[in-house]
């Protein structure tokens, strides 16, 4: 029997195809990006080894006027909006739905719809909603008597970033709501019964029982929201039509543009390396800080 489960040839047959594919197409490219970031290269001519000068240029001198720092700031704004707007909204919805309100299932299903629609569709839709001449947003403002607020949402630098980011925040509310909802539903019912018998109000119950118990999933949601924001691409790429502007760029759209439009392979790869490093660092930091807070809470009890 053991010999069957130790069969080396069978193990190779099971593991090698996926492993080779993963190493060549998933892992090797990261190393290649790191190498490309040290080159001056347009993808056609010969590549010149320039050491770390791409890093210096992307982060400090900015000879090509790429304004990568703006894109980082924008992605941080998105992360902040997600953590302080999207997640609280999702949590409120999850708490209300999980409390057994009428129509729970229907609401849950509807709230999740934007998540399954492709960002390409949503992006084109929002372009039409924001259209300065016939967009729904301006129409609604007009009919609400707020015609003075009508605006060319993307052209106006003051509103461009928010116009670009709010659809992103909106699209994934349902996703986080679902994760939190599932976690709340996983809490044993006796705990809520006991709280009700002790005369705890729903709000008190939420803060004293539900939130502490779903902390692990809240941690997951914060991690996703932050890292997802840092590497966000689809919706912004569609809405800005891939044309770079410091007002609405995020690191991934700018990387795409730097590589495939401006053909600065070295600069683009530098941004790619930055994305990997940024995501890894945030991942570890978030895991750590959120965890210590939880452990501190444990000790207090």
């Amino acid at each position, binding site marked *: *029997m053991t010999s*069957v489960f130790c069969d080396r040839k069978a193990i190779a047959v099971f*593991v090698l195809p*996926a492993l080779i594919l*993963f190493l060549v197409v998933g892992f090797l490219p990261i190393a290649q990006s790191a190498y490309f970031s040290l080159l001056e290269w347009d993808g056609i001519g010969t590549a010149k080894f320039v050491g770390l000068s791409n890093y210096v240029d992307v982060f400090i001198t900015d000879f090509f006027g790429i304004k990568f720092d703006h894109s980082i700031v924008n992605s941080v704004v998105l992360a902040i909006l997600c953590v302080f707007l999207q997640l609280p909204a999702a949590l409120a919805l999850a708490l209300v739905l999980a409390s057994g309100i009428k129509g729970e299932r229907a609401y849950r299903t509807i709230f999740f719809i934007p998540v*399954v629609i492709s960002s390409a569709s949503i992006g084109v*839709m929002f372009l*039409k909603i924001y259209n300065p001449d016939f967009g729904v947003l301006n129409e609604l403002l007009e009919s609400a008597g707020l015609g003075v607020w009508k605006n060319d949402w993307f052209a106006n630098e003051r509103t461009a970033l928010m116009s670009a980011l709010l659809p992103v925040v909106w699209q994934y509310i349902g996703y986080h709501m*679902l994760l939190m909802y*599932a976690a709340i539903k996983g809490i044993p019912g006796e705990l809520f019964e006991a709280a009700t018998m002790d005369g705890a109000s729903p709000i008190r119950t939420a803060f004293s029982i539900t939130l502490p118990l779903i902390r692990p999933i809240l941690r997951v949601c914060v991690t996703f929201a932050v890292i997802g924001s840092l590497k966000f691409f689809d919706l912004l790429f569609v809405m800005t039509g891939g044309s770079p502007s410091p007002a609405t760029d995020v690191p991934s759209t700018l990387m795409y543009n730097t590589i495939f439009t401006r053909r600065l392979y070295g600069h683009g790869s530098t941004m790619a390396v930055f994305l990997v490093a940024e995501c890894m660092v945030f991942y570890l930091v978030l895991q750590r800080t959120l965890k210590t807070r939880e452990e501190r809470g444990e000790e207090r009890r």
Partner: protein
Amino acid sequence: MSVLKDRTGQYRYVAAVLQFLLAAFAAVQMFPLVWLVLSSFKNNLEITGANVIGFPRQWRWDNYRYVLDATRLGSNLLNSLLYSIATVVLSGILASMVSYAVTRMKWKGSGFVLALFMTGLMIPVHATLLPVFIMMKEARLLNTPLALVIPYTVNALPSTIFIMAGFFASLPREMEESGVIDGCNIYAVFWHIILPLLKPAIVTTAVFTFLGAWNELMFANTLVNKENLMTVTVAINSLRGIHFTEYGAIFAGLALATFPPVLVYALFSDQVQKSMIAGAIKG
């Protein structure tokens, strides 16, 4: 169990307010979709100002015929379907084999191999785009279905393996052991005993892999840009091109592109929600 079950006095009042807020939010969530479908039946005059929000004055199915004639949206939809299904099948087979070998078979490197795949959960795929592009170009695979199916499969492997390996931990071993005693070799055990047992995990991962591949934009936009081979997400992104001024037809195209995932969701909403919860480990 439920805190609102106690519907006396103030709670009934609170419940009514909550119902109103939930309904309002549901309307917000549905609005873009409803507006999209309504607009797909309007003409330019209505869309550009005469009737932006209301029902179409006349339901123009012609918009749909027009967009299907003027673009390759029909084949783009088919492409997306084929690439997504190929990704689901390929990643499902590869991941189930790996998960089986690392959780059930005894060999030295199993823990390391699993850990290696799990690092894939943290790496942003964006950083692999340029090297993969160059790789596909050199392999002469640009503008072929494989240019997308291969990276999509690789990107799906970590989360799929994570879920399947976790699922194996809950499966009893007796079935495969009795299979071995009955004289099955390891491949027969895998094919006839393991895969059927693994079905719930396969369905779960298939759903989020399918939606992920269907909706993917960055790789699709870079690696396949021939009009007859591109995916529907790329096609609708290029629909806004200046040459195309029939807005009703653009909306019809958007509606067509949006319809399949929404249909899948409408039919299997519980399964989709379950899958998205399970698949929520991809960072």
